[in-house]
């Protein structure tokens, strides 16, 4: 068994743009084999927080540390963006790309990509350009592209934000399978229903600050703060 890259620990970490703190300071620990759901209204900093965790945004002020070096940790993470990033390639080439980058031979990479495509019912579209896929198919493609390297930690930024019910269900099923196989998932959503269905832990983000971080069960039973309660009731929280 490979050494785990977890836990991921944040202490006083901020994301800043032109000096202004968009997120933070945040203290947070992600420790393993569970699905952490970051919830909060639009603009509360969910995307920025996830990007910081993955290393796409520089951590300012505080610290962000993995159990192993940042370089090693990076190799065992993957990120699914809110708007799918399509490469100007075929579906199967898109899915195989992370393997190619890691030096896997073309033939083997393609075989694995074909298997993964089949898991999300994309096998009929293998050799079509990715741009020919529908919104839901695009997001499924980027999901398996993220999973093909078998990451220990998977980040997803509102993966179902603009999808219909069917696509959302397919993606949620894939997420449940993935978690069952032991992958640690950190994702964001503004859909409380999705949070209820999937989350083990809840991180409530308001104005860039972690307002609550607790078990999902506890949060949905009784939020610890008035804002949490208000957010849960569907009231307008800024």
């Amino acid at each position, binding site marked *: 068994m490979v050494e785990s890259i977890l836990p991921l620990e944040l202490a006083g970490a901020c994301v800043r743009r032109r000096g202004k703190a968009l997120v933070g300071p945040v203290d947070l620990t992600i420790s393993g084999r569970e699905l952490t759901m970051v919830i909060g209204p639009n603009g509360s900093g969910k995307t920025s927080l996830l990007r910081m965790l*993955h290393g*796409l945004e520089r951590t300012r002020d505080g610290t962000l540390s993995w159990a192993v070096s940042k370089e090693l940790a*990076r*190799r065992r993470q*993957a*990120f699914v*963006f809110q708007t799918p*990033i399509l*490469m*100007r*390639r075929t579906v199967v080439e898109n899915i195989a*790309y*992370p393997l190619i*980058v890691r030096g896997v031979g073309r033939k083997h990479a393609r075989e694995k990509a074909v298997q993964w495509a089949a898991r999300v019912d994309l096998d009929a579209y293998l050799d*079509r*350009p990715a*741009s*020919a896929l529908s919104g839901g198919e695009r997001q499924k493609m980027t999901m398996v592209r993220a999973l093909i390297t078998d990451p220990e930690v998977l980040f997803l930024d509102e993966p179902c934000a603009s999808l219909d019910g069917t696509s959302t269900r397919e993606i949620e099923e894939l997420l449940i399978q993935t978690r069952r196989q032991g992958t640690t998932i950190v994702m964001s959503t503004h859909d409380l229903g999705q949070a209820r269905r999937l989350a083990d832990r809840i991180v409530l983000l308001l104005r860039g600050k972690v307002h609550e971080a607790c078990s999902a069960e506890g949060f949905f039973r009784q939020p610890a703060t008035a804002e949490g309660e208000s957010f849960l009731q569907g009231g307008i929280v800024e």
Partner: protein
Amino acid sequence: MNDFLQGLIEAFRLLVTLDQDLVEITLRSLQVSLTAVLIATAIGAPLGSWLAVTRFRGRRQAIACINALMGLPPVVVGLFVYLLFSRSGPFGVLGLLFTPTAMIIAQVFIATPLVVSISHQGLRELWAQYHDLLISLNTSKRQRMTTLIWDGRRALLTAALAGFGRAIGEVGAIMIVGGNIDQATRVLTTAIALETSKGNFSLALGLGIILILLAIAVNLAIHNLLRTERASLW
């Protein structure tokens, strides 16, 4: 008006009779400019890609320089290459002056800034789309560059064709380094310049029409080649 008509007639006559001199200079034009553009693209694509993925001090100045080089008058390039390859110049011993090779070298200088600049513009856009993904996947700089070059090959083709357009229509540089020697270094543009200087406007115009037809043919041929490679547009 008469001159235009005569030019058209002349072009038609040259084409129909497949004038042997015409075939020779046309093939030489193609050989010189296509080779030059091939080399310019081999330089320009990696450089454009590198400029797209790399941030360094003076990057904007470097790009400004390359854009300025696009406006370099071919005559200046010709003079520069002449001085390099003159028997009295640093590379004189190679004996390349007044050969098609010297013309290719001059056109590489002329086409490369254009190819770099247009490649960079196209690949920079692609890089903006790919940036987060390629960073997330922990790609090396080399991998980023090759991915952009491969996925941006249409932009690179546009760049190469622009370079070809500039090269095939260029006369100032190859006149100086090629010398417009009959049967050795004469190409369409230098022949046009020569006939113009002789006052043979209709022949010059006829050759000009053939030059344009040639450029169009090359563009269409390459675009068709790509269309058969993959039917759909990205």
